[in-house]
């Protein structure tokens, strides 16, 4: 036996990370500042990685010449149509798979078989099916967004507490009311989390599709700049894609705060 005679040390801290938006911004600013300092000091070869100031100047010229908006608007239109199409069908299929036994096994079998296929590999096929125009690009995006949306939605539906559905049944709610008032809101956190993933996937596929067969769009612009060894404009295109991703993530964050205020 041993005798204890010490103050009780606090050991209950940690495991509760806090979001600090200022730290996020400061980190990005610090990386850009270090990058600029490295480029100015000659540590980073600007022939291969231009300085942030050069990229900003290239962005400025692209902005005032109207070229940036031409490419960005084409990409945004494809992103919006492709993502919304994939999301609408994905949420519908996810709900169906999550709610009805008749569709669950067949639906999940199709998802399991097709989800692992790299969607970029399907771009040439979609060009054959839908032509080199907008159809193939939108199909690529929609197809890429569809499967993760099905999985996120079906998972969300599965996680809606059964007791709440029983409550709805006990109160005589119709199936449509139970889906609208209980299942969909209950699955919404998982669906919105899925949106974070699917928007990123959509941006990746957008660039890939635009690199394969487009004259306008950020992907086409980046590819053209690379072919011309115009590295400032190439990096400007990449920065635009990064800003696009950040903006989309911010919009989803806003939607989460608005729709999930009850949490």
């Amino acid at each position, binding site marked *: 036996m041993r005798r204890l005679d010490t103050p009780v040390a606090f050991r209950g801290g940690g495991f509760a990370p806090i979001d600090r938006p200022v730290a996020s911004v400061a980190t990005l600013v610090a990386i850009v500042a270090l990058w600029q300092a490295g480029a100015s000091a000659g540590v980073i070869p600007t022939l291969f990685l231009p300085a942030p100031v050069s990229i900003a100047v290239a962005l400025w010229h692209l902005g005032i010449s109207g070229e940036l908006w031409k490419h960005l608007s084409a990409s945004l239109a494809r992103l919006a149509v492709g993502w919304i199409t994939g999301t609408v069908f994905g949420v519908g299929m996810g709900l169906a798979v999550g709610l009805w036994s008749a569709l669950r096994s067949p639906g999940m079998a199709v998802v399991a078989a097709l989800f692992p296929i790299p969607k970029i590999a399907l771009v040439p096929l979609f060009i054959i099916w839908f032509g080199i125009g907008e159809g193939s690009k939108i199909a690529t995006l929609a197809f890429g967004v569809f499967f993760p949306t099905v999985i996120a939605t079906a998972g969300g539906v599965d996680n809606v507490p059964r007791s*709440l559905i*029983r*409550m709805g049944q*006990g*109160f*005589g*709610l119709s199936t449509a009311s139970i889906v609208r008032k209980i299942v969909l809101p209950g699955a919404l956190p998982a669906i919105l989390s899925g949106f974070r993933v699917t928007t990123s996937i959509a941006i990746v596929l957008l660039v890939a599709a635009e690199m394969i067969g487009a004259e306008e769009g950020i992907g086409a612009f980046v590819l053209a700049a690379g072919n011309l060894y115009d590295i400032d404009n190439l990096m400007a295109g990449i920065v635009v894609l990064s800003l696009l991703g950040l903006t989309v993530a911010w919009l989803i964050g806003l939607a989460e705060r608005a729709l*999930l205020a*009850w*949490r």
Partner: protein
Amino acid sequence: MTAGLRLSVSGVHHAYRDLTVLDDINLVAEPGEVLVLVGPSGCGKSTLLGIMGGLLQPGSGSVRCEGAVADDCLNPLTYVFQDFSLLPWRTVAGNVSLVLEDRLPRAACAQRVREVLALTGLADFAGAWPRQLSGGMRQRVGIARALAVRPACLLMDEPLSALDAQTRDLLLEEFSDMIARARTTTVYVTHNLAEAVRLGQQIVVLSRRPGRVREIVRIDRPLAGRGPADPDLLALEADLWRLIRDDAAAAERERIDAPA
């Protein structure tokens, strides 16, 4: 509120795969009567309530409800759940109006929500989220939601068991007053024999699994006069405990002995 449903259970048998949980259950809750189901853990009380309310399909046997239902009754057989089953994404008023908003005009719905919130002492909490409420307040919302549909029969599945002792005592008094006033047919499942004797007019004692009706005890006294220290009720509670005790101990041993 409406009164007048007679709920009768005939020859109900139910099993989960090979495990028989209810065997040959026959009982009747008369219109306006409070029927309390008691019995050891695992005897099938909640299963029987699920069958009585149509949420579970019995293996055999039937449940029948007969009687007059008022025109403003939106859901004759209405549950109050042990875990409250509130929708966390709806406010208190939103939870209470869950059923009403599909079936009543907007103004009538708002009026009924206001009435029920006032009746259950929740008028100041209409805009609160469930997560902001204590357990007792959440169960009040559950009660308010049930009362809002003007039920003809209340099915209450251990509505006080998730609450602390003080809140339980307070809500038990309120339940007693509410049920006495409303005279709605009520089926009330509980482990707690004190609750059973405070509320029950017919106490159905189930045996351990498979649950069978072991004894039916009737208390012909108005709910209004029943207090926690009433010697007759305490004696009855002791009698009930003697009835259940051996079964409860055996059920507990079965649970410990059961393979994981």
